[in-house]
């Protein structure tokens, strides 16, 4: 500033100061107005959003997981129960407030107590993303939540840690309820029961969208079997405790509580005793088969999988059902390791998660013939029909052999079923094909045998209350054309290459006329070979229809849902799908014919010395041939009450391999000892499935149904 001596200059400095004071005043005013505006914006406009955020972080909901419902058998014996599992957790916030030395000492002490390496403990307490953390071991939950470092700790250890809290600062011990498998009579039933695993983020989001409060972040969800099918009953409703927490996540006080509601009990029609017999017989059969030499393939049987189904033929309920290979459901409790999981999904272990009884699809072989007989008897054939059971049958340029090239001369359907004559049925199939469908390319040609197979429920899921059921497949004209359409591009390409080996010849043939439904297809179809596939349960259900006079049921494993106080929430009855449209006389004829199998037919040698005059077992065997593999052994049998069906893949003939096991199962069902039938010794009291439900006593005990109580409780 020019320091001139004029008064004007002096005045200017002073005035400037005053003007600037005014400017400062204006500035201050505007700043404070800004503050007001911002305050308004935060508290009035954004108030609700911030209040929601405030509530979210200052109130935490501690979910109280309900005890999951039990799964019990027909007499109330628990197949799936719960047990307490002790979990040791570390509060990270408190841990990190300790000095390094104290932290080390604490972790070493804890590691000794729970028998987990110190390094693992430390790795677990690191947040994912934190320095030194490793994917897989790090904690990916909330940083304010205690980190579980040891699960399923022995109760003794858990209590000793709790009692000496001063030695274990920042360590929490908590109990949680996990699945337990009491295994009455040593049953496994893994496929039936299913398993649980923690809810996924997607499922949780979906549940939230549905306003389903029964699922929470800590919930476990049924993944297969009954656990999945009846998850919404079994899971119960989580309670929650709303607590005010501070910025460190420490609980300041309660602000509300809703009690958890335990899950409902699922009563099944499975009988643990029968189930245990069935499982035992299946594994014994497989073990025996693996020790047995197969003269066809010149090596021992592989016997890689198998299934047994025991149905109540009168109402379609499942009494027992087993599949092999199986797994231990305990593996899933408290989290499965990735190695165990890999094994369960591996080809080497033969996919033990796959339930062969409902998810396995196999060529039915000769167990298919009774259904074909029913079809034939309603389409022009009669009990008096006589056809040649020759040692072979020529169709076009192919010679179809009878089993072991045997010949029985002219016989009726009854004998053909009993001795399982292939050439007899070839003739039936060939004649029907000639009559209705000799136009190979006519997709809509009439095929009475296919129609009958469909009526017996093949080619679609049975609707059993187990998830993931397979539909099977009827290899009819439609299927064949669809298959050809789907694959012709590949084969037609192969066909253009030179070569005269099997693949090339087949490719050329398939490319040109793969759609054609030939006599050979019809002939294969009628004896259950070729591309037709069934599940053991489908087959068992079809036999149940033969047993009960033609009613086809949707089989049911579950019988009822009962709430924790013993009230029946829902009764579950097998639905009737419909009646098989086969005349009563035809069914009776088949019934009588199959009765002969055990006396003089293919199973006779396995049922010697069995009281067949008291227990009227109808049966049919099958040895389904699978290209490149050993044959599949089938035995389907039934009386007026039960259906017992067994199959083992790559295990030889029907009766030879599965016959003894099927007989043992029948013996257990009726309490057979030698030639004596003692229903008091039967697996099921009175040898009939109980009609009522188990009784749920006030003290939580589950008693057998009143209808079954006359037998001693010794079997429990």
């Amino acid at each position, binding site marked *: 500033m020019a*320091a001139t001596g004029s008064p004007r200059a002096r005045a200017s400095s002073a005035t400037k100061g005053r003007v600037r*004071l005014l400017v400062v005043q204006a500035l*201050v005013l505007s700043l*404070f107005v800004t503050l007001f505006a911002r*305050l308004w914006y935060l508290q009035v406009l954004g108030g609700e959003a*911030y209040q929601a955020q405030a509530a979210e972080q200052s109130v935490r909901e501690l979910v109280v997981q309900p005890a999951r419902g039990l799964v019990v058998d027909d007499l109330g014996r628990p197949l799936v129960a719960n047990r307490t599992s002790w979990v040791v957790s570390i509060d990270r916030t408190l841990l990190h407030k300790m000095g390094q030395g104290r932290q080390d000492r604490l972790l070493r002490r804890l590691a000794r107590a729970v028998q987990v390496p110190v390094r693992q403990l430390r790795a677990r307490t690191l947040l994912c993303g934190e320095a030194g953390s490793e994917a897989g071991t790090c904690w990916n939950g909330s940083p304010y939540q205690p980190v579980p470092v040891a699960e399923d700790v022995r109760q003794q250890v858990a209590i000793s840690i709790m009692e000496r809290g001063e030695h274990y600062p920042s360590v929490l011990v908590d109990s949680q309820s996990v699945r337990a498998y009491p295994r009455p009579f040593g049953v496994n039933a893994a496929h039936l029961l299913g398993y649980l695993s923690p809810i996924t983020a997607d499922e949780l989001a979906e549940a939230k969208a549905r306003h389903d409060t029964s699922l929470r972040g800590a919930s476990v969800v049924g993944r297969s079997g009954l656990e999945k099918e009846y998850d919404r009953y079994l899971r119960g409703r989580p309670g929650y405790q709303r607590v005010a927490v501070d910025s460190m996540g420490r609980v300041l006080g309660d602000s509300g509580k809703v009690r958890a509601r335990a899950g409902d009990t699922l009563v099944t029609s499975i009988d643990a005793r029968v189930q245990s017999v069935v499982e035992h017989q299946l594994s014994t059969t497989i073990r025996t088969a693996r020790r047995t030499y197969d003269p066809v393939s010149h090596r021992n049987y592989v016997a890689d999988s198998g299934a047994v189904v025991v149905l109540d033929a009168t109402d379609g309920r499942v009494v027992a059902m087993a599949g092999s290979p199986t797994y231990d459901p305990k593996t899933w409790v408290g989290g499965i390791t990735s190695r165990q999981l890999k094994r369960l999904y591996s080809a080497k272990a033969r996919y033990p998660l796959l339930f062969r009884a409902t998810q396995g699809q196999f060529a039915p072989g000769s167990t298919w013939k009774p259904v074909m007989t029913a079809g034939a008897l309603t389409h022009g054939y009669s009990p008096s029909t006589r056809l040649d059971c020759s040692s072979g049958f020529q169709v076009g340029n192919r010679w179809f052999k009878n089993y072991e090239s045997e010949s029985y001369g002219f016989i009726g359907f009854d004998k053909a079923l009993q001795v399982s004559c292939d050439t007899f049925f070839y003739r039936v199939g060939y004649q029907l094909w000639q009559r209705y469908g000799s136009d190979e390319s006519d997709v809509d040609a009439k095929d009475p045998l296919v129609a009958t197979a469909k009526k017996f429920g093949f080619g679609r899921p049975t609707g059993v209350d187990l998830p993931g059921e397979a539909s099977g497949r009827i290899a009819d004209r439609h299927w064949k054309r669809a298959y050809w359409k789907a694959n012709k591009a590949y084969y037609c390409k192969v066909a253009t290459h030179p070569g005269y080996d099997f693949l090339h010849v087949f490719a050329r043939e398939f490319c040109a006329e793969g759609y054609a439904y030939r006599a050979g297809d019809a002939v294969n179809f009628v004896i259950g070979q070729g591309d037709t596939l069934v599940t053991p349960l489908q087959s068992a259900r079809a036999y149940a229809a033969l047993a009960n006079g033609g009613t086809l049921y949707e089989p049911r494993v579950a019988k009822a849902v009962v709430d924790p106080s013993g009230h029946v929430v829902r009764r579950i009855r097998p639905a009737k799908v419909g009646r098989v449209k086969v005349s009563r006389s035809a069914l009776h004829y088949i019934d009588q014919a199959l009765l002969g199998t055990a006396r003089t037919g293919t199973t006779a040698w396995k049922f010697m010395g069995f009281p067949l005059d008291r227990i009227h077992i109808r049966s049919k065997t099958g040895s389904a041939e699978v290209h490149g593999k050993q044959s599949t052994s089938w035995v389907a049998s039934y009386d007026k009450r039960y259906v017992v069906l067994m199959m083992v893949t790559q295990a030889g003939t029907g009766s030879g391999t599965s016959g003894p096991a099927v007989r043992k199962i029948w013996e257990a069902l009726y309490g057979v000892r030698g030639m004596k039938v003692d229903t008091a010794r039967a697996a099921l009291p009175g040898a009939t499935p109980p009609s009522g439900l188990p009784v749920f006593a006030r003290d939580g005990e589950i008693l057998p149904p009143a209808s079954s109580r006359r037998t001693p409780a010794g079997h429990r």
Partner: protein
Amino acid sequence: MTVTAVRARPTRPARLDATTTRVGAARLDWLLTVAVAGLLAAGSLLVWSATSSRGDLTAGDPEAFLKRHLVNIAIGVVLAVMVTATDHRWVRILAPLVYLASVAGLVLVLVMGSTINGSRSWIQLGGMSVQPAEFAKLAVVIGMALLVAERTEGALSTRKAWSVGSVEVAGMLTIAGVPALLILLQPDLGTMLVLSATVFGVIAVSGAGRAWLLGLFAGAVSVAFLAVRLHVLKTYQIDRFMAFTNPDLDPRGAGYNTTQARIAIGNGGIFGQGLFGGSQTKAGFVPEQHTDFIFTVAGEEFGLVGSGVLIVLLGVVLWRALRIAARADDLFGRVAAAGIACWFGFQAFQNIGMCLGIMPVTGVPLPFVSYGGSSMFATLMALGLLQNIHLRTSHGLGVTRSRLR
């Protein structure tokens, strides 16, 4: 001392002349006193509420902080009364001592200070921690005012026209620069910002040329620009500074603070959750809530209405301070009062703005409200000085040669 006013206000001297001999409490600026008392009372309640449920801080005594806060206020009020009652001549004699003492304090901090929240700003003195930077603000204001006053009065005494020229501005910058540098070394960015704004305000009110103001402003901007470009500031420091615009820049530090502060204030709504009723306050979500983030307690527990009153009270303090500056008879009084107003004003805006998420998160207390002895003493002494200036103006006594009206 002779009156050398160029233009005198006609009514004022007449009224003042009648009361020239009375030095009385009646002449205190009562509005200012009441506003400050209101702030002190509100501050006590807020500090109490912010700490009563924080067992980790209070070690079991919910009133521990309230008690200490009240003691601080008591000491501060005594200091304020002492400053008010001190003869203005003594004020000017003591001013250099205050300045030197606070510079010495700042040096001591760097030598033997303790580090809290990343800056070395505290000296532990027998169980008490002193923050010399708080006193430095007052010292710089007095020092600069004194320099301007001495220079111009010297000029007048030699019958030369007075003016704030380059020499004066350079002198003021030197006075401000020494403590500023020491504060920057701590580093205490918040105090530095407040000090800069205050110095700028003082230089502006002292009447320095527009070129100087523009130059200073441009200089500050380029220094900030260079500090960023030449990586004098680390990326994380910039992120921390800018976290109020985007909390993700420093999610565990300043970003967390600013998010939590907004949640707490937003949670208050229009009427607030009531004293001791703030869930966020009780649960301790906002860090440093009894000191730098005390306004969030007001926001949550008193709501828009209560915290609005708090802002109004601060506004009244500033209004009175600026009024005292405008009416001051001498250059020292005007510059000092205006400087104090700039200090209070900017610090209050910085503090509340930080709580509201429109200013960077820096550690500056809210004048008269935040917990903390040094700040309380310094601001109350400044209040005392304001009253002192006011008293002298209204007395009509001791009209100095630098009287301007």
